[in-house]
């Protein structure tokens, strides 16, 4: 799992590369737990290279969801592969989180 991020003003784009399993979830959790993450108003998660997400990986997003919502930070997933999206859907997360198809769409939704 490789986690990289790109900062553009108030927007941080986090790119996930590989499989988000129990061990790499810890890395992601550390990344999302950093205090400076609260300085952004939009967090875009690029899932183009995310091949697999385990329940632990989902748990990380779920645990931060409420916090971001309270701080009015928008969390948007984009470029998600079909099988990963299916996992989100089965769990019902697609109705809870914003999942869009492309970066442009994500930016549009973020700026609404």
């Amino acid at each position, binding site marked *: 799992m490789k986690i990289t991020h790109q900062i553009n003003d108030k927007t941080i784009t986090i790119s996930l590369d590989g499989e988000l399993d*129990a061990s790499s979830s810890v890395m992601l*959790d550390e990344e999302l737990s950093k205090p400076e993450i609260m300085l952004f108003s939009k967090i875009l998660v690029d899932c183009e290279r995310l091949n697999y997400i385990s*329940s*632990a990986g*989902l*748990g*990380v997003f*779920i*645990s931060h*969801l*409420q916090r971001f919502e309270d701080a009015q930070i928008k969390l948007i997933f984009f470029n998600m592969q079909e*099988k990963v999206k299916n996992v989100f859907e*089965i*769990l*019902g*997360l697609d*109705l*809870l989180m914003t999942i869009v198809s492309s970066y442009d769409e994500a930016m549009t939704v973020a700026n609404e």
Partner: protein
Amino acid sequence: MPNPVNFKKTFLFIAVLSWFLLLGNILLNHSQSQLSASLAGVSDYLNYILKAAFVIAIFMLQRISVNSIKGLDFIGYLWKLFTRAGITAYICIVLYLGYEVYTNYYTDTNLYLLEVIYTINFAFFIYFIAKAFYIWRRLILFQKTKALDFEWRWFEILLYSTILLSIFRLDYTSIIFIPLLALLALYVLFLSSHLKWVAYLTSGKRWRSIFLLLAILLSQGIFIWYFTETIPETSGIQLNYLDDPFILLAGMFVVTYTGISFLVAFFSLPTSSVFEQKRDDLLNFQRLTQLIQQGEDEQQVYKTLFDSAIKASNTDAAWLEILIDEGSEVIEVLNLEESNIVQIRNLVQSFIITNVDYINGNLDNNIHFKALQLPYKSIYVVPLKSPQLRTYGVLYLLKDIEQGYDRETVNVIRTFASQTILTIENLRLASEALQNERYKEELKIASSVQDSLIPKTFPRDTWFEISCFSQAAKEVGGDFYDFLQLSESRIAIIIGDVSGKGISAAFHMAQMKGIFHGLMQDDLEPVKFMVKANQALTHCLERTSFITSALYIIDYKMRGFFFARAGHCHTLYYNSMTEETFYFNTDGLGLGIIRDQSYGKRIHNMHYDYNPGDVMVIYTDGIVEARNIKQEEYGEDRLREMLAQTYHLNADDIKYAIINDVNDFSQDMPIHDDQTLIVIKFLNVQQN
């Protein structure tokens, strides 16, 4: 092979018999001094034969008896030689003096008595030489090599062959034999250079051995003096016993070896402490390694290191501290006050790099140390660190002389330190292994407890068949299923999957079972159950965990079922009327994701009327996410395809068909998530 005891008796018998015959013959010769020349020749010859028989018998007797002494008790050997054989020299001198006194006061000379005493003393002498010869053999062959063994055997063969010279009455002083005998004498000198045993004497034993060797030398001196000085040529003795190459050579060997041993033992006295030190080091080293096998604890290992290091370096003051979570703890101290330790440690830490051996042999030059007014002039600091650079503790050694720690000592102590680390690490590994074993046991228990939480048999009824399969990826898992008979015609079936794996998942799974049985007593409809369960889990699920679940309430009178899906895998269904196989694609959020009242909006009740012959397949994601070697997932499509092919079978066979297909798909890949599969087949109600 005859018993050695029999041999002993035989030799003893021969020795005694030949000695008495020898004495008798000699006395007889004296009484009949006017024997004819030919008869005198025969009698003389008989003397030589008897003497040779006696000597050989005594030597053989000693060869057997000394051989049976075992062990490395060198002092014991010497002591035995002195008490059993050396003492005969003094008896010899007493007999001689007695004879002198007797002849001075009562008679002139008594040739018979002289011959008797002379022959007795000869017997003593041979006994002494033989015993010494074979005890020296033991010492020479101590830690023998093959070559040495061989050399000694030849020495014995050559030596014994010289007996032939006297039996055949050949003149050994002739020009032919002198060089040969001289060569043999040189051989004796060569053999006498094997003195390894001396090095193994501790200094206390060395002194005792020197005195014993001196006493043995004295015995030899007495014998030599007796046989050479007190028996004049003119005394009329019939046979000069010592005029024999075998006895001369054996005697020479015994005297030479005793002499050399004495000198070597005496002159190696100053160096013996070095050898002792080395041997102690070795023994301590051995002790350190053996502590693991003896099941000792770390304290014992550190103590052994401390004691060994002090002995090896002759240190005046020392302490050993081991690192604990915060700072360090002094566990062993020698000749130092607590305050001194703190002062020295602070000083040392101020000018050394940690984790490196530090030696200072000139503490006088250090102003700070001098200010402490301690009598020590050398310090050696040894950190106890593993090859992975983990430091376990530090050993401080102090001496009151300059340059007190030479390279040799440092090497020994360093070896002790590394052996200690090895021992400590091995001890820890051993205890960890034990701990792991215990954990495994506990996991086994957890596994069996969890196993008991999952129902093994479903209620059997005529209107449906049910078949279940469950397999955890680890000893315990997060998958669960259960049922509850709500009324005569209604049954609740629940399936669930706790996020994560292992122990934490297993705990939540048990919780979920409790919630199911607790809430369903009130016969809740599925959505109500999910809302209440979500609320209940809010207080006992950590933030990153969630549970997916689906609850089905089947009513066979109504031929229908209600269900709600809380984020769980879609239910697979075969409809026998339409002959379609499909998934119920309903919405529903997992439990524990939203932890407030709004959860109720995220879950929905579904109702479906079933027909006899319909099949419902309920499973967890371990089934559809099973992977093959190419990391492809089994997937919902393959599962649906399997049901489409097997719906006509009974529930058990459908289950086996699916499980076999999943296993064929994933081949030898280990399962990475718990797998649960429940197949329900609805039947026509049979009238009883």
